[in-house]
């Protein structure tokens, strides 16, 4: 039985680093894009895990009794996990999707103009 969420955090960090490894060392543009989405996933997992509370449930009030009076609400409040990180993660995911989409579009055009997916072939502008 784990005291906290080391597992999630550890995995998240692991994903981030793996993603970065791909980003920094792979030459294939597509793999770099993948690396970014892996890292994003890691971050998202981390954010969700920040809101996680042991032994609590999803922040949805599904039981009519819960809605009866304020006391019950307080009780209910003690039953749910933090909804905010989930909201944030939702946004984060969508943003991630957006960036990935744009990156892929770039990659398509880079391939079109460069005839290759090797990132090192696209460093002509320098100094």
């Amino acid at each position: 039985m784990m005291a906290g969420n080391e597992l999630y955090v550890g995995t998240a960090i692991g994903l981030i680093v793996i993603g970065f490894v791909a980003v920094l060392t792979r030459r294939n543009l597509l793999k770099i894009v993948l690396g970014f989405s892996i890292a994003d996933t890691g971050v998202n997992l981390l954010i969700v895990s920040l809101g996680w509370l042991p032994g609590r449930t999803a922040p949805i009030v599904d039981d009519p009794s819960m809605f009866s009076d304020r006391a019950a609400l307080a009780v209910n409040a003690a039953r749910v996990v933090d909804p905010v990180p989930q909201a944030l993660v939702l946004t984060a995911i969508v943003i991630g999707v957006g960036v990935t989409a744009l990156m892929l579009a770039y990659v398509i055009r880079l391939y079109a103009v460069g005839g290759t997916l090797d990132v090192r072939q696209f460093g002509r502008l320098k100094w």
Partner: protein
Amino acid sequence: MKQIVAVVALATLAILLWQLAPIAMPSGLGVVAQHYAEHGVQDNRGANLVTSVVVNYRGFDTLGEVTVLFLSVSGAAFVLRRRTGLEVHEPRRASEIVRTGARLLFAPIVLFGTYIFVHGHLTPGGGFQGGAVVASGVLLLLLANKDHPLPHGFLSWTESLSGLGFVAAGLAGLWAGGSFLANRGILPLGTWNQLFSAGVIPVIYTFVGLKVGSELATLLDVMMHAADEEVHQ
């Protein structure tokens, strides 16, 4: 060489991040979260607190979120506006069964997606999830048949109008409820756990769903046809 430096650096970074683990450990609800948890239901009559947060408390974020998606789709289309340099190679035509199956499945998928975003304030899920599901339907079609005709006009109209709807809802809030995206005085909050409850939340989420669905569909379409000659905007 660079590779090694990179790996070493990232290892160090991992250590650095791991030192944050103690912060990440569970520790009750924050002040804001506490309020959401306690009064969320009363405030919006929405069963799904996440949805209340997403659409109402932090609705402005969500508007931004929609904007991001919209922007990245336009951006992708903009980047792909040039079509030179890509040779079109026709994939092997999918079998009759696959194509028929895809067309068969399309309707239920869209229906399911719609269900998801319409019930966003009651059940897990919402506009984005629903929209994604709808788009997956389109994806299925396009995978089965690259040249499957899509109603571009319809899509872009939906895209624009739903987005406009979101903004309009927000302005309605400003007009009726005193602040942008306010969930007061526009629609009755209704009773908890009814489909028609939680004020404008389901409306907004519907707009979001439609917008996300149509946008992702457009995105898929644009990417699929990045190499085609005809330019459609």
